[in-house]
């Protein structure tokens, strides 16, 4: 979940900055671990039955290193924006967490504070009468964010960094315990904190509880993120389904214009739809996956489209060429064109009997892929019958208009030879 390399190392107890230490006198457990922000060492019970944080640490008297830079880190701000939480309405999931925090710590105030470069916005708050946001002049939480570690203060009025913070006079903040809240990508979004208006010490249990609640909020954010990603996928699927229907409908309408028999019509439509579906099957894992760039191997498309002919005419079909990656638009266009080329070969050309040969060879030169579609040892092609139909139009439009390429056909005695040139940038689209 937290895999962002720019994020700081997980919180450690040894780096946990606690207020002045004056309220915590027991030094014995000082090196206790706080791996991943969790207290993992059992602490001793005090006479009152509560746990004392048994660490003596100096609270940093200066700003965390790179404070401003961290707060204004564009990646952090982008992650914050992506949550859609800034200026959003209160929600029970967050309200519940602050209610629990105040109940556990016994403080009057609890906040989920989201910190950008200029202000803190309270996604959830309990016990504050002020508005739902403040400028950073009134923020302790900003230091939790920039340090990306918990911050505990027993009496902020004595603290060199915080004593002049306007949260003290204006909001009545005196004691503060806050832990970071992270986005699913690991960026620090803000702080989850408990606040008291009079000095108090904080216990290990309280810190652990805030950490646990913060992790609950982080899990909520991760689930929301996953749900949003799924919605994107659904939208993409819906778009593609709509497109497929438009394509199928166009195929049917145009195949009808050919005025073939019903059987011929049905077969032509069925095979064209099959080519579309084959392209779709190649595209969909790519379209729905994380990667966006061109990643469908041209050779895979070619073999998918030619497979039925390859099996029906063993040894009559060969192909060879270097690896070329296609984008999803180019895949659909090429699938249709290759299907029509192969259909023509099967109907009239080298694959219309078991004597002919279809050799496909391609190479990449400069910014183009050139493909040589060579039918030999077959019947003499009849140029007149092939030029007008839907299939031929589809071939030339797909290659010339959709892919910005060119196609030349040479009608020879024992078969036709097509030279197709396709710009690589269009193939990547």
């Amino acid at each position, binding site marked *: 979940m937290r895999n962002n390399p720019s994020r700081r190392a997980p919180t450690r107890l040894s780096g946990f900055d606690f207020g002045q230490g004056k309220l915590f006198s027991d030094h014995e457990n000082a090196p206790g671990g706080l791996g991943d922000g969790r207290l993992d060492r059992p602490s001793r019970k005090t006479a009152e039955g509560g746990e004392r944080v048994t660490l003596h640490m100096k609270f940093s008297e200066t700003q965390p290193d790179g404070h401003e830079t961290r707060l204004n880190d564009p990646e952090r701000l982008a992650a914050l924006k992506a949550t859609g939480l800034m200026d959003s309405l209160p929600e029970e999931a967050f309200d519940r967490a602050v209610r629990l925090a105040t109940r556990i710590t016994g403080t009057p105030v609890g906040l989920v504070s989201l910190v950008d470069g200029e202000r803190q916005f309270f996604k959830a708050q309990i016990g504050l009468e002020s508005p739902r946001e403040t400028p950073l002049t009134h923020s302790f939480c900003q230091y939790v964010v920039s340090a990306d570690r918990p911050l505990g203060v027993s009496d902020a009025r004595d603290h060199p960094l915080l004593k002049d913070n306007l949260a003290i006079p204006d909001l009545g903040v005196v004691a503060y315990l806050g832990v970071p809240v992270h986005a699913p990508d690991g960026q620090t979004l803000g702080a989850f904190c408990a606040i008291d208006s009079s000095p108090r010490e904080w216990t290990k249990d309280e810190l652990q509880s805030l950490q646990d609640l913060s992790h609950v909020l982080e899990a909520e954010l991760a689930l929301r993120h996953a749900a949003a990603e799924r919605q994107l996928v659904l939208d993409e699927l819906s778009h593609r389904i*709509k497109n497929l229907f438009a394509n199928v409908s166009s195929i049917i309408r145009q195949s009808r*214009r050919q005025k073939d028999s019903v059987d011929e019509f049905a077969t032509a439509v069925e095979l064209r739809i099959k080519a579309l579906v084959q392209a779709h099957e190649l595209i969909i894992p790519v379209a729905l996956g994380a990667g966006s760039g061109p990643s469908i191997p041209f050779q895979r498309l070619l073999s998918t489209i030619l497979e039925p002919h390859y099996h029906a005419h063993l040894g009559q079909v060969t192909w060879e060429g270097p690896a070329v990656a296609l984008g999803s638009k180019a895949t659909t266009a090429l699938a249709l064109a290759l299907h029509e080329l192969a259909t023509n070969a099967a109907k009239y050309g080298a694959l219309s009997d078991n004597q002919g040969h279809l050799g496909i060879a391609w190479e990449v030169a400069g910014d183009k892929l050139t493909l040589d579609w060579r039918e030999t040892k077959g019947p003499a092609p009849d140029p007149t019958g092939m030029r007008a139909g839907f299939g031929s139009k589809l071939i030339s*439009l797909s290659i010339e*208009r*959709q892919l910005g390429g060119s196609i030349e056909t040479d009608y020879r005695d024992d078969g036709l030879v097509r030279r197709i040139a396709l710009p690589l940038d269009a193939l990547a*689209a």
Partner: protein
Amino acid sequence: MSPCMRGARILVAEDNMLVAMDLAAELEACDAEVIGPFARIGEALTAAAEHSPDGAILDVNLLDGEVTPLAEKLLAAGIPVVFCTGVALPKDLRGRYPDSPVFIKPTPPERLAEALCPLIGGAA
């Protein structure tokens, strides 16, 4: 069939080739002369300048971007345009040319032709 299409030069820009071919075939069945279809704005702009169309049917999103520059040029020259879009019409276009019919995909090609028909009354 739309008789007013007879002999009219209709520019077609649509980046889904199957849909484009269907539309072109429909227009040809109405005896219109099809300029295109084009999947890219650049090619369509060049063709528009060369062939001075009587009307145009435009997909809003083409391979190389939104159709706006082409639509602007055609409409500025008084050439009627019918839009067919999978999404909404860009705001600036709708504001400036509220009279251009807009259809949401999928729309049968004959409906697009019918919508363009009265707008090119003077053609041929």
